[in-house]
């Protein structure tokens, strides 16, 4: 490494930019999969579309190890306290993706049993529309999230 660099040359950056760069390429997802959108999520996660290219290939099934809560599918009123609790258990910094129409606004289920969008109980960073969304759309949403992580002010905890 050292012999490829010109001696005496160094790079400067801002701490925010450097941390954002590190964080956006090491996203550990927590997939909160409750419905049929899960099939699309699996297809994105496996080799054909391969979200590992974006550094998000390692799903963690404990909220304490995850950075991004990705809510995939319909959330019923009965499930809402569970989702809120999972969100509260995640460590800062954390982000949330609402995956598909149901998680974003309730989808076709405008009735007594369904939560009309998870943004009623947790803050959402990225909404991915579609019923279910195409894998390309999910990758696009993921890149939008990476952009957001890169450009935000990084809290040092």
């Amino acid at each position: 490494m050292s012999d490829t660099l010109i001696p005496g040359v160094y790079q400067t950056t801002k701490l925010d930019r450097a941390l954002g760069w590190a964080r956006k390429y090491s996203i550990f997802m927590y997939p909160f999969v409750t419905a049929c959108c899960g099939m699309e999520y699996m297809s994105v996660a496996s080799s054909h579309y391969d979200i590992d290219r974006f550094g998000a290939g390692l799903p963690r099934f404990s909220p304490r190890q995850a950075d991004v809560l990705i809510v995939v599918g319909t959330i019923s009123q009965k499930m809402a306290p569970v989702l809120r609790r999972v969100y509260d258990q995640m460590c800062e910094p954390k982000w949330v993706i609402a995956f598909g129409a149901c998680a974003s606004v309730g989808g076709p289920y405008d009735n007594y049993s369904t939560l009309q969008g998870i943004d009623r109980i947790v803050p959402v960073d990225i909404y991915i529309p579609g019923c279910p969304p195409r894998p390309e759309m999910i990758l696009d949403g993921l890149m939008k999230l990476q952009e957001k992580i890169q450009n935000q002010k990084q809290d040092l905890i």
Partner: protein
Amino acid sequence: MTPEELISRLATDLPKLNLKGWVDKEHAVVELPAANIPELFKFLKTTPDYDFKMFLDLTAVDWFEIRKPRFDVVYHLLSIEHNHRLRIKAQVEEGEAVPTITKIWEVADWFEREVWDLYGIKFTGHPNLKRILMYDEFKGHPLRKDYPYDKRQPLIAETWPVRKIQVKMKEADVIHRP
């Protein structure tokens, strides 16, 4: 047995149960008072000629403001041996109870809990009649026609302020709901 034969034979075999039968789209239907349900079902399950071994479905219909009595309780049975089916209906007024059939078919346990949960029809003699789909804090029975379609009973408070704009728009009557 064809549906027509099934109905006529049932009426002659069980004259004291007040059976009323007809054929609906090639499907045999029998209607009777709710109190006679356990007796009929025991007969249908144990008599070899009918041999209805399989309990398929139990549901209810709400005829709110259209008919009195208000509810229909609907059962579906299947005989695997003879390949014939039967639909059994009983009319129930609001507040009336239906005798349970969990002693004849144990599988009816969860069906009866579901009907109680969503329609509020009670089943006397049921071992554990409580809500099965909705949460315990839920008030009312959501599939009744007089349950408001846009009524929500959230379990936790809607804390995040994103929806405040929508609420304001609703107050200003911008969003039209049919």
